[in-house]
């Protein structure tokens, strides 16, 4: 790593705001040729937003970007590509039924005029490129025959190709977003060998990960983001794992979490060795009346999968669920609802609301049978049903407004309201305050207090550690589909929870 020449990339004072949140606030990032720069932070810290600005998917509100010492204005993904910036996302963007070569050169295949593909050149270019990168793949293999790791290699080759010659490396900056999340350890070794080859060739790499062991294996420097701010950039030789965890987690836990704890009562729900292939294994815990059990974990740890299984949305294939003292088997969400389970899903637009229907009709959706007389809905019955809920939750809307016109916080209140009027005693809240303004957040916390005071039990999944610490009576930490650790409210600290979520503590 030489610092005499200008850095490959300088991002200075990058700022980006979305309605209601500042996603990035004055972030700097400098990359040198041949460097692997690790980017760390909790979910929602701003890593993805920063990379989306770099790749032209988002536009920055303020700040400047320099590539090789030159000021650049990245307006679109096309601009970023022209500057030699390549991003490999977690979800691969490949066509399963095309060959390796066709995927790599998708949209840029060499032609013999009139769009007729020059297959010989296509395969020749591909072989040369794969050779350069030290990848042992046959250009003609259909993609769906490859393992996940091999597909990732294809994605990397695709990012690094030079459309005109087929080989060489026009990419100067490569961003990799959690590239090892689905790889076995041998595959990881191969990927790291490739990274070593790339940096030797002068590429600069931004590497996003949650696995701290990887940080030390391949990283030169590390930047830590927290709540859209840059908290540190350090050489990895100068920082310990414990310091990194503290940097990621350290946040003021304000007293704006008004949790009023009540003595837990009878057991409402017990889960024993619950499993779902590829998502959950050996999950056991219980929930008592008046209790809030928080579930922490990183993206992909299996939290939402657990919520969906408990709400009957997906089926389990191992273990059992005991509800109010009886073994229950949920085949559909309706079965879970009959047992008094209400789910606030993670993605309210996709799973929580019917956007085109009115507030009243969304609120009444689970209660159709109760409201109807012989299948007929008396005129205005849904509005009359909705009125007290709307008032109680202070939804800023009338019952007859379509929910798509409401703000995030008010939409969330409607999803919550669906279960308040029913017989639900067990609430599963999956990211209840995501995309919700501060005022509505506090109202949701008060609602949680009210529900537990009246004897309900709540399972709360959240990526916001302060919220989880502030509102839960117990915290379960999930990692790779299992419960990694359990803390009481008194024992839990951000560092301990985060260490467990990262898979470090055990």
């Amino acid at each position, binding site marked *: 790593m030489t610092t005499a020449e200008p850095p490959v990339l300088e991002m200075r004072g990058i700022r980006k705001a979305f309605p209601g949140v500042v996603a990035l606030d004055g972030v700097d990032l400098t990359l040198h040729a041949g460097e692997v720069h690790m980017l760390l932070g909790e979910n929602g810290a701003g890593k993805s937003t920063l990379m989306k600005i770099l790749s032209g998917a988002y536009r920055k509100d303020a700040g400047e970007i320099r590539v090789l010492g030159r000021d650049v204005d990245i307006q679109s993904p096309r601009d970023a590509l022209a500057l030699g910036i390549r991003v490999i996302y977690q979800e691969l963007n490949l066509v399963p039924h095309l060959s390796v070569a066709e995927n790599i050169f998708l949209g840029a295949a060499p032609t013999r005029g009139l769009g007729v593909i020059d297959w010989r050149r296509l395969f020749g270019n591909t072989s040369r490129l794969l050779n350069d990168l030290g990848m042992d793949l046959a250009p003609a293999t259909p993609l769906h025959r490859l393992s996940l790791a091999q597909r990732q290699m294809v994605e990397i080759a695709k990012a690094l190709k030079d459309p005109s010659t087929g080989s060489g490396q026009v990419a100067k900056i490569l961003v990799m977003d959690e590239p090892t999340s689905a790889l076995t350890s041998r595959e990881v070794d191969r990927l790291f060998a490739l990274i070593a080859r790339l940096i030797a060739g002068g590429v600069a790499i931004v590497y996003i990960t949650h696995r701290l062991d990887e940080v030390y294996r391949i990283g030169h420097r590390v930047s830590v983001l927290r709540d859209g701010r840059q908290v540190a950039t350090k050489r990895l030789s100068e920082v310990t794992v414990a310091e990194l965890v503290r940097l990621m987690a350290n946040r003021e836990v304000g007293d704006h979490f008004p949790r009023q704890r009540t003595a837990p009562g009878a057991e409402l729900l017990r889960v024993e060795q619950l499993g779902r292939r590829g998502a959950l294994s050996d999950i056991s815990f219980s929930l008592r009346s008046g209790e809030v059990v928080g579930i922490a974990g990183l993206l992909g740890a299996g939290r939402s999968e657990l919520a969906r299984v408990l709400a009957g*949305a997906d089926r389990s294939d191992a273990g059992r669920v005991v509800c109010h003292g009886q073994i229950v088997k949920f085949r559909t969400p309706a079965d879970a609802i009959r047992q008094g389970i209400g789910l606030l899903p993670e993605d309210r637009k996709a*799973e929580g609301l019917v956007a085109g229907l009115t507030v009243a009709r969304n609120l009444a959706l689970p209660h159709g049978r109760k409201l109807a007389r012989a299948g007929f809905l008396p005129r205005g019955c849904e509005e009359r049903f909705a009125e007290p809920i709307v008032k109680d939750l202070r939804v800023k809307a009338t019952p007859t407004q379509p929910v798509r016109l409401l703000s995030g916080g008010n939409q969330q209140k409607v999803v919550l309201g669906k279960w308040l009027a029913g017989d639900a005693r067990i609430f599963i809240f999956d990211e209840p305050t995501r995309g919700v303004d501060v005022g509505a957040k506090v109202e949701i916390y008060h609602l949680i207090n009210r529900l537990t005071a009246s004897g309900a039990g709540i399972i709360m999944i959240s990526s916001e550690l302060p919220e989880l610490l502030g509102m839960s009576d117990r915290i379960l930490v999930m990692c790779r589909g299992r419960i990694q650790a359990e803390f009481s409210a008194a024992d839990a600290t951000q560092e301990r929870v985060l260490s467990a979520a990262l898979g470090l503590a055990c």
Partner: protein
Amino acid sequence: MLRARQFGTVIGLAVLCAVLWALTPHFLTVSNLLNIAQQTSINAIVAVGMTFVIISGGIDLSVGSIVALAGVALGAMLQTGYPLPVALAAALAAGTACGMLNGALVSVGGLPPFIATLGMMSAARGTALVFTEGRPISGFDDGFRVLATGSIGFVPAPVVVMILVYVVAHIVLTRTTFGRYVYAIGGNEEATRLSGVAVRFHKTLIYGTSGLISAVAAIVLTARLNSAQPIAGMMYELDAIAATVIGGTSLMGGQGTLAGTLVGALIMGVLRNGLNLLGVSSFLQQIVIGVVIVSAVLVDTMLKRHKE
């Protein structure tokens, strides 16, 4: 319930009528308007079932074939000498069964609605042809034919049936839990399922409803032709889809009204009638109708985009 979006189509219908009135004085006579209503009634009835299916986010390509199959069942029963109510019930049952099979293939079998109903379109037509050996069943007594020839006051019986179907279906769609679930499933199937609604069951019912209503159309058609034909109802699915989308129902599901569909069916009927009166060749008519379908939906799409 006529929302702002349907005003466009109502105005379109009014303008169309005004133009035709100006071009040919014969257009605006009581007998011609009743004639239009009668000619439109079959397509308008079939389009009711189509509207249910499209609002729920699906499509039903089999309605025309179900019209033929239900008609043939009716004709055969009548000719064998079964009493009229039994024959009518058999026709309605046949249509409903075909529709529910569609629904089961979609909801339980997980097939795309396009494929499931495409299969039924071919199979139901084939069944009607095999059953009749390709020949029409003709000649029914007057007690049955009154469904086509009779009238209440000056309103012909097919139009009466059409009005009844629209009134009942409108009440079902707007005032029952079933109707509510039709919109909810089309708007967001997963959210509806997570709300505890039996989505598979209701989807099966929705396609069953479409089959049932196609059988109603088959009864009227058989009475009018005084003949049950295995090749009846060809291309009815396209007319019904056209009436539904001209009426402002979104193919994406989740929104639409029966009032809109009725206006859509009337636009198609008025256009055909007017072009006939003007002596436009049937070949040319197809071009005009194609243009009208596309422009109606184009205007609707642009208005919606403008509003967003």
